[in-house]
């Protein structure tokens, strides 16, 4: 039985390599692109990969996308790049879990001659072909500014942070602090992580409402999920959510619904622009000047042949005016 299994396994490996080799020889009609994302458990990464698969060149069959789930582990992502190298992928899109550890994965790809475009989260590497993402410092600044405005420029705020040490937490915090430094009348009562989690933020806010009764004026959630948890705690304590200034980042569906009810402010991170824009840059490098980029984002920022080192995708504040249109767009993207 064991021998049989071993034989079958070997046969499978051999046919696998033959098949892979065959596909490559048949003329470069289909480009194999690997999309290594930090984790498919996050709603944002689901939106990102769905948007990528809806890119016109993927739909037409010019590009074949393989999504690698990094499972929030830098060493898993490293192994996935090694797989892409041995399987001879034509290019890779990379959303690293860790800004420093990601560099080794990019180096692995470079040694195998695979161009890598970063998207959404940063990686500290000079070998990256280009990076298309949004500036987390700016969003942190924007959301803090909005909370300060909502509470009238003075009062007490609490900050609910992402997992300590993740680049989004570090950079959004920098942005939060920059805005707060401009307003010395706003005091930070508490600052604590809830690990991007709605349930954790709910408990945290319940406890804060108790330890600072009647003192909290604003909540800066470093993502939407945690801001939503805070809203839940406020409602549970029978307080009026509209008495609080609350903001989050990302533009997840529930946050859009909350914006519609005037409970919070959110800033949309454009997953479609980051994913499809990244693929355009990669294809421009692989195919050459004849390639025409297809993503909508190039209507707003200059493509420049895909030669820029950094493409900054603008944040979109979600307002009562644009929320219905954004929700409709989201509905289309998340059709189950």
């Amino acid at each position, binding site marked *: 039985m064991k021998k049989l299994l071993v034989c079958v396994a070997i046969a499978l490996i051999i046919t696998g390599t033959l098949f892979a080799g065959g596909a490559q020889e048949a003329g470069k009609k289909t480009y194999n692109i690997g999309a290594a994302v930090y984790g*498919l458990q996050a709603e944002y990464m689901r939106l990102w990969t769905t948007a990528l698969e809806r890119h016109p060149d993927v739909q037409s069959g010019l590009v074949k996308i393989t999504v690698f789930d990094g499972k929030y582990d830098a060493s898993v992502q490293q192994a996935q790049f090694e797989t892409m190298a041995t399987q001879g992928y034509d290019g890779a899109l990379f959303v690293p879990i860790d800004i420093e550890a990601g560099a080794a994965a990019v180096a692995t790809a470079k040694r195998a001659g695979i161009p890598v475009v970063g998207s959404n989260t940063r990686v500290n590497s000079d070998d990256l072909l280009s990076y298309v993402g949004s500036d987390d410092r700016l969003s942190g600044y924007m959301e803090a500014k909005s909370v300060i405005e909502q509470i009238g420029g003075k009062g007490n705020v609490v900050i609910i942070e992402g997992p300590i040490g993740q680049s989004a937490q570090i950079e959004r915090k920098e942005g939060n602090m920059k805005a707060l430094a401009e307003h010395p009348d706003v005091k930070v009562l508490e600052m604590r992580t809830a690990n991007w989690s*709605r349930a954790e933020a709910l408990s945290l806010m319940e406890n804060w409402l*108790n330890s600072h009764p009647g003192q909290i004026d604003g909540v800066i959630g470093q993502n939407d999920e945690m801001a939503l948890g805070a809203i839940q705690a406020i409602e549970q304590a029978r307080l009026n959510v509209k008495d609080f200034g609350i903001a989050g980042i990302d533009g997840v*569906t529930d946050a859009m619904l909350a914006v519609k009810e005037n409970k919070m402010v959110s800033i949309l991170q454009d997953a479609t622009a980051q994913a499809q824009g990244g693929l355009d840059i990669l294809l421009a490098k692989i195919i050459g000047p004849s390639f025409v980029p297809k993503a909508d984002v190039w209507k707003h920022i200059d493509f420049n042949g895909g030669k820029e080192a950094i493409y900054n995708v603008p944040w979109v504040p979600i307002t009562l005016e644009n929320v219905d249109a954004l929700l409709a767009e989201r509905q289309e993207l*998340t059709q189950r």
Partner: protein
Amino acid sequence: MIKSAKKKRKEVQSQNLSASLMAKFSDYGIFIIFLLLVIILSIAKPNFLRPQNIMNVLRQTSINGLLSIGMTFVILTGGIDLSVGSILAFGGVVAASFASDAMGKGIHPPMVAAGIGLLAGILLGAVSGVLIAKWKVPAFVVTLGMLSIARGLTFIYTDGMPIPRIDKAFLFFGQGEVLGIPFPVIIFGVTYLLSWVVLYKTRYGRYIYAVGGNEKSAKVSGVNTRLIIFTVYVISGLLSALGGIILTARTTAGLPQAGQAYELDAIAAVVIGGTSLSGGQGALSGTIIGALLIGVINNGLDLLSVSSYFQQVIKGAIIIGAVLLDSLRKKE
């Protein structure tokens, strides 16, 4: 032959009696530690004793409390259930999908949606139960596998995205109140009472202790050990799904990534409560104190504004310390 079996059963029963007496005695150790912590916290932070905060602690404890009760049943038989957090997520999203228009399954009455969620939990628990009871695969391995399977099923079912727009009526499970007491706390309390009756007032409960104490002798004395072992995983699955339903109603969304690492807090509550990991010894009341202790630690450290880094260290140290003190006291 019949006589000797009867005699053995009696022996098992009397053994259980002394074991449960001992366990009762050891409860007080944890209870004293728990009281000490409460006193220290109320001096350091008078807000701690506000009725609203006490309700907060109870509400925050209720989910882990439910998981811990199920875990107590399992651990009393000498098993372990590592899949509670994943089954919680699965039960939660299944119930959510029948209480929201987001998945095209229609909005059903809360009891129907919750019932389907509970069935999902029972089903997964039953799969583990069969593998462990009938096929004798170690519980650690089966539930470790189930941890991964149930989480994967949750992501497949939801396509990795939260289920929004939960029906208002359904939210009562997490946010409702009866006579000023949060509904999750009532669910937790009722579950505790029912479980206490099952464990201490029925033959089934005595058999659970017997199986955990010595499976072979229980079998010889005529206990259907397979059935007992099978059912504790079903109970654990059911209570995990119940926790998931409360979590969904509390956060107003079916969250596929909910409940990660919850098994650790549930096991910690059981162990703090004095239940032996090798089975057969321990008491449900200890588990409840254990769960409350963890809830109070989390709440207290938030109230005292202890930094996140220290919070983790302190929590771990208190867990080990509580059990250490208890075992030192027992030695004396």
